[in-house]
């Protein structure tokens, strides 16, 4: 049954009963139709908060960055199995406008795929064919501070709106049906060193965004904006100001240029009404002399009240970090038994090479263990604080420490499979660096780092996808990957109820492993480095897998 045709360019619509409607725009036309009496098409996009809340039970779609509010990247879809995954073939490939690395995790809603493209481009794609349905472009100024490229990792959807955090620190709301801009709010002035690269998180009636800029002497924060109007609802500074608890952990005036950004998407627990977010490195990165103290809440997990942005608890992974070990990695919420008791957990594989299990009701440390080679701590104490080994701080000449500054893992999303109880994460192995510092504080052309890392000649780091027991940190298996040069693995992980783990390599292979054993079941060479997270969904009732590789979005099916 055809509800309407578009006639010429005059935007006339005719319903199946022959009722003509003239309209100035498609959305207006649909609104007019919706108020009439004839059988009306529902608005194309409807993703109320309640639907995101239940996204685990809606596996035909991918409604939020991490697959659900717990960031599991786990799908209940079972059409693609270990037995048939080797038959996957590409259905279509969409080429983005830009040719640089593409870090997006797509959203998928009722057959439409929404991607952000670098820089500040949003495209809606027909899931059956890969043909664009609409495209939104927004220029951005050339003087934004850039530490590491200008990626955008994805979008949020709520109701019938798409939300984009732009590189130049605007939060933009688009009509998901058409790509038309609804509002555009400045989150912060980019001239102060801030940028945004993350997918926003839609929680109830708010859109939460965090900032990058840990190399530019910013003062980090997390902000929530009203989803309807764009108005600021709350803001939480990740570095306390004078008079606030924690300000004493920064010597002198160092809190003012303290970094501690919030550049990756967090998690949300609706029962506790808490938003969890990882906080990045203190500034300057490598010379801690000018910011003595623990430097709260840098390199921490923070739990905030979703309605007010008030701090409920914090846990600092790396006090007084001097190795750029951001703790922005994706927090994963796990409900599991520990010692026979059901526990609400938050788990994280940290850039500092330790895996942590926290109680997410109060932030208490439960257990932790290294998941990758590290030479900076002899272990974690009872409260989860690292027990530091001597002489691991950067020096003028350089001191060799594992992991190197890109970390044992980084921004790439892990996955958690409740059926295997395993946490899957891409890691970088055999990777140390000589960390050096430059006296300071010393702002060089806007950069506020005071040091860096040099690679170790004669080492060939490799990538390893590791399966870690979520409640203990024990490593069950690993799948090694070649990495070109000293590049890091940068693909997220997807896992399914049928027992698959899907990820990609920097060389461009998409691969599938057995979720229990780690055995390779399938791989496909896309020819483009993979910097993105795979998602799975249904098109015409058939399970598909999408992943960005090089400048293409690849959609695979059986």
């Amino acid at each position: 049954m055809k509800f309407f045709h578009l006639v010429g360019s005059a935007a006339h619509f005719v319903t199946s009963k022959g009722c003509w409607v003239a309209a100035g725009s498609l959305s207006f036309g649909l609104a007019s139709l919706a108020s009439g009496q004839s059988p009306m098409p529902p608005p194309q996009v409807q993703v109320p908060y309640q639907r995101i809340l239940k996204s685990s039970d809606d596996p035909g779609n991918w409604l939020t960055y991490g697959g659900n509010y717990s960031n599991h990247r786990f799908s209940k879809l079972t059409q693609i199995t270990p037995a048939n995954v080797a038959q996957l073939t590409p259905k279509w490939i969409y080429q983005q406008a830009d040719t640089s690395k593409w870090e997006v995790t797509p959203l998928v809603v009722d057959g439409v795929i929404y991607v952000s493209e670098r820089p500040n481009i949003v495209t809606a794609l027909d899931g059956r064919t890969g043909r664009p349905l609409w495209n939104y472009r927004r220029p951005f100024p050339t003087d934004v501070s850039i530490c590491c490229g200008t990626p955008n990792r994805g979008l949020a959807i709520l109701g019938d709106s798409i939300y984009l955090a732009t590189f130049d620190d605007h939060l933009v709301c688009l009509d998901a049906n058409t790509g038309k801009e609804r509002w555009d709010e400045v989150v912060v002035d980019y001239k102060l060193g801030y940028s945004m690269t993350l997918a926003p998180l839609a929680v109830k009636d708010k859109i939460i965004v965090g900032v990058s800029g840990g190399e530019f002497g910013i003062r980090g924060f997390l902000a929530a904006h009203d989803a309807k109007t764009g108005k600021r609802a709350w803001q939480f500074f990740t570095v306390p100001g004078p008079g606030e608890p924690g300000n004493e952990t920064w010597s002198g005036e160092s809190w003012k240029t303290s970094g501690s950004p919030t550049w990756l998407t967090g998690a949300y627990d609706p029962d506790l009404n808490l938003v969890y977010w990882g906080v990045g490195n203190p500034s300057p990165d490598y010379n801690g002399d000018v910011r003595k103290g623990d430097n709260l809440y840098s390199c921490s997990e923070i739990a905030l009240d979703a309605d007010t942005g008030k701090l409920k608890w914090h846990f600092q992974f790396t006090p007084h970090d001097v190795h750029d070990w951001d703790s922005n990695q994706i927090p994963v919420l796990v409900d599991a038994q520990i010692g026979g008791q059901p526990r609400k957990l938050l788990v994280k594989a940290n850039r500092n090479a330790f895996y942590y299990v926290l109680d997410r009701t109060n932030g208490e440390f439960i257990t932790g263990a290294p998941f990758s080679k590290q030479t900076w701590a002899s272990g974690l104490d009872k409260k989860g604080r690292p027990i530091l080994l001597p002489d691991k701080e950067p020096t003028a000449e350089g001191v060799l420490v594992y992991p190197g500054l890109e970390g044992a893992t980084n921004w790439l999303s892990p996955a958690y499979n409740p059926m295997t109880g395993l946490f899957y994460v891409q890691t970088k192995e055999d990777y140390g660096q000589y960390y050096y510092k430059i006296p300071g504080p010393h702002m060089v052309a806007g950069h506020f780092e005071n040091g860096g890392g040099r690679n170790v000649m004669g080492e060939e780091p490799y990538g390893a996808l590791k399966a870690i027991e979520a409640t203990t940190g024990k490593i069950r298996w690993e799948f090694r990957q070649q990495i070109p040069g000293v590049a890091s693995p940068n693909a997220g992980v997807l896992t399914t109820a049928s027992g698959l783990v899907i990820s990609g390599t920097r060389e461009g292979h998409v691969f599938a492993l057995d979720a229990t054993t780690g055995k390779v079941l399938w791989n496909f060479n896309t020819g483009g480095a993979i910097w993105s997270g795979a998602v799975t969904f249904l098109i015409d009732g058939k399970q598909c897998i999408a992943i960005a590789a090089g400048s293409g979005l690849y959609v695979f099916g059986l």
Partner: protein
Amino acid sequence: MLSRSITLLLVLAPLALRAQPAPATPATPAAPAAPIEHGTEIVVAPGPANLDQIIKNPASLAEGRRLFQTHCTSCHGPNGEGARGASLLSPNLPRVAEAAVAPAEAPGGGGGRGRGRGANAAAATDGPPVSPYDRALQQIIQRGIPATEMQPPRLQPGELPLVAAFVKSLGQLPPEPVPGNASHGAELFKTKGACMTCHMIRGEGAVIGPDLSDVGRARGVAYMRRALTDPNADVPKAFQAYRNDISLPQNFLFVRAVTKNGETIGGVRVNEDTFSIQLRDLTGKVRSFFKSELSELHKEWGQSPMPNYSAVFAPGELDDVVAFLVSQRGGNK
């Protein structure tokens, strides 16, 4: 001797020689992994300087040497004699000379990955005039050389001219004596040494080992003599599985693959990924294997298949072959 001191330093100087600049592969908004953006920014401020003025000042030159040994020796050797990177013991470094005659934005193909200004655009504000060669040398150090492993060092403001002056001073050292007879060496290279069963010079020979058509631009007498008499001395593990050329020591890796059918193939790694490997066998043929087809894969890290030529050539003949090799400055076309 020089060659011995390189070997000793490789073993004894863990920082200066083992450290190398990070490649430009930044991963996250918070990981300052790439010196590119930083390096180009840092050194813009002072502008190019007259290097001869600095060379005349012993304190400045000593500071330049210290900076060189911090930032450059891992590739260029402790005294600029070349190692992974080119020898700098020349008054007329080829890349610099090319850049010096090129128009304003030219050196290294534009290289404008950062926001640094071109060498010619950044006029010195005061002091003696700056020659095009000095300007180009500073610009190359400032920017690195795109598409090579030459990354810009992370220098502080004001340090660039000091390093550049030290590099220039290396070219003013008396040239290394070349004792042998190059034309006799050319003959030995083809005949007694059978070198062309592996190496190519100006289109003649085989492609298993590195092309030697311009090895003399990058390598000096001591290095070449060591390469002939101790071929494994400078074949470190390398980071890059793939380069356009196979070159010692940057990415040469000899591998031995055993197929599930029991065939053993020795060859040089051309490329490798997680699931496959491509190698050039000893006949020069490219062989490609999925790793699932192999029962064994041995990587002979640090090993060269080249024989020790002190057992092949008499000492005088070795001098002749070295003289021939260091005279190869022809480009590889």
